[in-house]
């Protein structure tokens, strides 16, 4: 089977407009979550991670001009455009493009009906901007969308459909999704605290990210290569809005991904978990990790830095996992104080420099979906 390499990437988030800026912020344990007072999103103040429009406008100046694009489109276009500008070897016209989003321009649903509410409008915007020969494919699969998009891209590349693909993902912090999570009583009244005893729910965030995948080994060297060596996405078949109590779908996703990668649980050096900070999700993940024998592997959730960025989250977190592999460092699970899940897991309480050869990235979402990805450093 052909190897699929993660070549280059970019992140557009409240913590910065490049992967490097985001890594620098994580090293300082800075969070993008603040107390937001914005009645267009919610009547009362809430904790969330918003991208400031003025900062976004400054970042896109000279790259994405004009007012015809929605905020989400600006974020997505900026992510791809930066990748395109920085990577001379990237020929975007020859790439397959997959877009990952849960709700797209959902903020356009308030008011008069517009084509922008359709997710395909984003695909057209990206196609037109970069003059792509075909319309990008969209994956809308709840909170695992970004990770699933990487898995799907890998599969398509290994089947020989493309040599190069770009996975781009993004979602907004919107009135729509925030009110929905409030209706579930799942929003934290402070910055979210994944896996902590004192966690009370999620913080929402917004972000976009883009990842260039390639099967061309000539683009990488032993020191820069990171491969996607295993992946799986198995449904719980249990409940549409709650995770399985046994973590069955996640357990099977991880098991299948490890098997495909040809590695055992003890060969995993770090887990970048989903860790939304809802009571049920975090408990479920801890159960699944324990069932596999991953309870002693250093694990964190990056939701304390970004909030839950929905369709961007697993993509963003995979990009950062790649940085952990290349830099041999892992970050503290921000917001964590005291273990609040029944089976013990090894939550990272501080940043650490450790050898990182293989990473497990997981995500789970509404509809009982789960995804697991194995990333490994070095050439095949």
């Amino acid at each position: 089977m052909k190897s699929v390499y993660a070549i280059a990437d970019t992140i557009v988030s409240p913590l910065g407009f490049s992967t490097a800026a985001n890594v620098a912020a994580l090293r300082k344990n800075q969070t993008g979550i603040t107390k937001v007072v914005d009645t267009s999103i919610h009547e009362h103040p809430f904790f969330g991670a918003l991208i400031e429009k003025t900062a976004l406008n400054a970042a896109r100046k000279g790259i994405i001009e004009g007012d015809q694009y929605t905020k989400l489109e600006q974020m997505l276009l900026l992510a791809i455009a930066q990748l395109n500008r920085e990577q001379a070897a990237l020929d975007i016209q020859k790439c397959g493009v997959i877009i990952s989003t849960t709700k797209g321009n959902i903020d356009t649903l308030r008011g008069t009906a517009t084509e922008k509410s359709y997710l395909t409008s984003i695909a057209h915007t990206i196609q037109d901007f970069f003059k792509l020969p075909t319309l990008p494919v969209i994956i809308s699969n709840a909170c695992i969308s970004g990770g699933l998009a990487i898995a799907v891209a890998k599969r398509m590349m290994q089947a020989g459909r493309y040599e190069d693909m770009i996975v781009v993902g993004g979602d907004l912090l919107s009135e729509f999704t925030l009110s929905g999570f409030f209706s579930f009583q799942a929003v934290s009244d402070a910055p979210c605290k994944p896996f902590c005893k004192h966690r009370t729910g999620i913080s929402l965030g917004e972000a976009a990210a883009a990842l260039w995948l390639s099967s061309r080994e000539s683009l990488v060297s032993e020191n820069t290569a990171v491969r996607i060596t295993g992946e799986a996405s198995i449904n719980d078949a249990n409940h549409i809005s709650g995770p399985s109590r046994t973590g069955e779908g996640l357990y099977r996703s991880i098991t299948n991904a490890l098997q495909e990668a040809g590695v055992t649980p003890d060969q995993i050096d770090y887990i970048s978990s989903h860790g939304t900070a809802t009571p049920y999700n975090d408990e479920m993940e801890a159960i699944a990790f324990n069932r596999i024998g991953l309870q002693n592997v250093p694990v964190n959730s990056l939701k304390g830095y970004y909030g839950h960025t929905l369709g961007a989250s697993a993509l963003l977190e995979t990009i950062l996992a790649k940085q952990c592999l290349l830099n041999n460092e892992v970050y503290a699970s921000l917001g964590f104080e005291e273990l609040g899940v029944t089976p013990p897991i090894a939550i990272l309480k501080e940043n650490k420099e450790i050898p990182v050869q293989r990473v497990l990235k997981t995500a789970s979402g509404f509809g009982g979906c789960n995804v697991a990805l194995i990333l490994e450093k070095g050439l095949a």
Partner: protein
Amino acid sequence: MEDHYKITSFCSIRDQTVYKDGEEYYTNTEAATVKDFAKGVYKHLALNYAKFYKMDDLCKLSFLASEVLSQGIEFPEDTALVLANHASSLDTDRKYQESITNREEYYPSPALFVYTLPNIVIGELSIRYQLKSEGVFFVSESFDADFILQYASILLETQKASQVICGWVDLDSHKYDVFLALISKTGNREANAAELNTIYSKL
């Protein structure tokens, strides 16, 4: 793929009519709403599945198509679900938006919010048939038989699934187009894009 896999069975729901393997199976032109029509199909199928009543219209139509598809067939646990549509969950999104637009009449409900994701269809079908399997929901302009079948073939050839239920499940302001096909090793129709497109288009 073309040599080994077949289109085992298929079901379409369009214009208040359900078709099974291309033949008219149920019709009710009297039904005023999607909900009423779906209820009629449910009764015709003599089903007893309480979760049906909680579903949004997109899930109901998809569920009913899957019930027709499953007649006389047991889906193995590793039957993958590869679905696509154009309107995502917009039909329910609009209803949910109505519940939050007016701050004086603000009544967001978790029971409705959960259906504002298209992959809930995959969740509902997975629960119904206990499919602990691969699933993905794509959004595109129209049904792309070539793309869907290529992706299904990847899952089959890499042994990530032993069968695939694939199709197009679209609902947009009362207009619906639901089509599901089972791809497995049994059946008379070759599993190729031309054939899949023919059976999708001809009704």
